[in-house]
């Protein structure tokens, strides 16, 4: 099913991506990603789902341009990706906020380093701080916020650069089950308002099914693409709806057993 709005042009295309690292004892090499091919359509919510911690974060870093692949290449709107850029906003699992900057300082960081004038970037920052529901917290420091709120700042900060693609690396991994449900609903709301292509990495099947237009099931180490699922359940989705639960069982059974 093609996503509802926007043209069909690929926002991002990666072909035959492989990545290997020197193994710890420095003798051999361990292969982390093997021959990964997929493309992200405009305004599509794509979820990379797979067990454990193997390769998904590395793949996301490669898409963002933070790491370079050993083989293969990533193309963003026709241009080869070689370095990070504001067009590809990243939301990190450990939020990676600047601890010495306030919420406003963090969200304003992107526009500020790209030379926007003071009022212009204040307007952008206020818009996104309001969007993620943090009005009134502009002056507080990350160390004074809860886990969920810090993630909201991470999302607002990435959005403030007006990226065409949002890359999210298990942003709700450290939250408790209930806060996680809330943040997933929040992200759905924000995504409906600020349509962007999203590549979302997670190892939580409920989260993947709740958010995704399309799920790519990854294998265990070395990560390869195992299967693809188109999810056309209507939004807002319910975790206990029979079709949701059926899909959940099917994907979990197809999943590799992690260590």
């Amino acid at each position: 099913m093609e996503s509802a709005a926007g043209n069909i042009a690929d926002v991002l295309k990666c072909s035959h991506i492989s990545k290997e690292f020197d193994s710890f004892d420095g003798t051999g090499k361990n292969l982390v990603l093997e021959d990964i091919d997929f493309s992200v359509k405009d305004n599509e919510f794509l979820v990379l789902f797979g067990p454990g911690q193997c390769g998904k974060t590395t793949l996301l870093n490669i898409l963002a341009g933070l790491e370079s692949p050993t083989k293969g290449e990533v193309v963003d709107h026709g241009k080869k990706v070689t370095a990070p850029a504001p067009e590809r906003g990243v939301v990190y699992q450990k939020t990676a906020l600047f601890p010495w900057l306030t919420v406003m300082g963090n969200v304003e960081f992107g526009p500020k380093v790209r030379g926007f004038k003071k009022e212009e970037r204040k307007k952008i920052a206020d818009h996104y701080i309001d969007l993620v529901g943090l009005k009134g917290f502009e002056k507080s420091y990350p160390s004074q916020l809860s886990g969920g709120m810090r993630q909201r700042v991470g999302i607002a900060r990435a959005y403030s650069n007006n990226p065409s693609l949002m890359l999210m690396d298990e942003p709700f991994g450290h939250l408790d089950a209930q806060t996680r449900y809330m943040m997933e609903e929040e992200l759905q709301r924000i995504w409906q308002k600020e349509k962007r292509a999203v590549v979302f990495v997670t190892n939580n099947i409920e989260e993947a099914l709740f958010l995704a237009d399309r799920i790519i099931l990854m294998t265990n180490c070395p990560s390869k693409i195992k299967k693809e699922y188109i999810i056309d359940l209507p939004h807002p989705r319910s975790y206990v709806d029979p079709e949701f639960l059926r899909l959940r069982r099917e994907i979990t059974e197809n999943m590799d057993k992690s260590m």
Partner: protein
Amino acid sequence: MESKTSRFMRKNMAAFMTIVAFMSLLLVWELVARFTNAGMFLPPASEIISKFVESFTVPIGKHRMLVHIGVSLYRVGVAFIFATIAGIFLGVSMGYSKTVEAIIKPIFEFIRPIPPLAWIPMSILWFGLGDQSKFFIIFLGCFCFITVNTYDGTKNVDHVLLGAARMLGASERQVFFRVVLPSSIPYIFAGLQIAITAGWSAVVGAEMVRSDEGVGWLIVMGMTNGNTVQIMVGMLAIGIVGYILATAMAKLEGRLCIWNQQQGI
């Protein structure tokens, strides 16, 4: 429910016990000094304290206590400022650029283990007996700590933060000034805290070897003419000023790095 008073007691128990500890110590000290032959070695506390207070009005040697302390602080202050500038500059450049690190670090690592006071003979040879050689010694005492801590701070900047800044469009220069430097601040302050204490200790050492005034001179002069009270008065002054310097630097760090609450370097 715990009664109001007992909670008050529980909270201030620590302060209460401290007072008790001090009183008992002073009392014992007073008795030992007054009534046993140890008094010859250890003057009674009351005498020391009264001499200490008196030293602010009656000069010891050429100056009153405040001037002695002032001279020592002046020496530490000047050397500390130079050491901070040099230390941060060298620490940051070594931490941030691999080539600078390759060139300077081996030389720095060769000089670092040599205690600052071991430089006294050389510094007297180079700078003579005056304040200049003391500045050099104190500079070395502070400089090594500030450089090492700044270097550590710049070296282990969280790579994810660097990635985040680059993702947000920051140029390499902006990454340096807006991420590398701010995240090194807690390390730099840790260095400054150790350095100020090391500097204070170095000035005492330098003044003991050769000086005409200052707290170090006070205690070494006390030694030469066998005046234990003057030594103890000098040590009391050194201890109090040392404590004030350390706490002041810690307070400064608390105010400047409020965001650093939970790491609490």
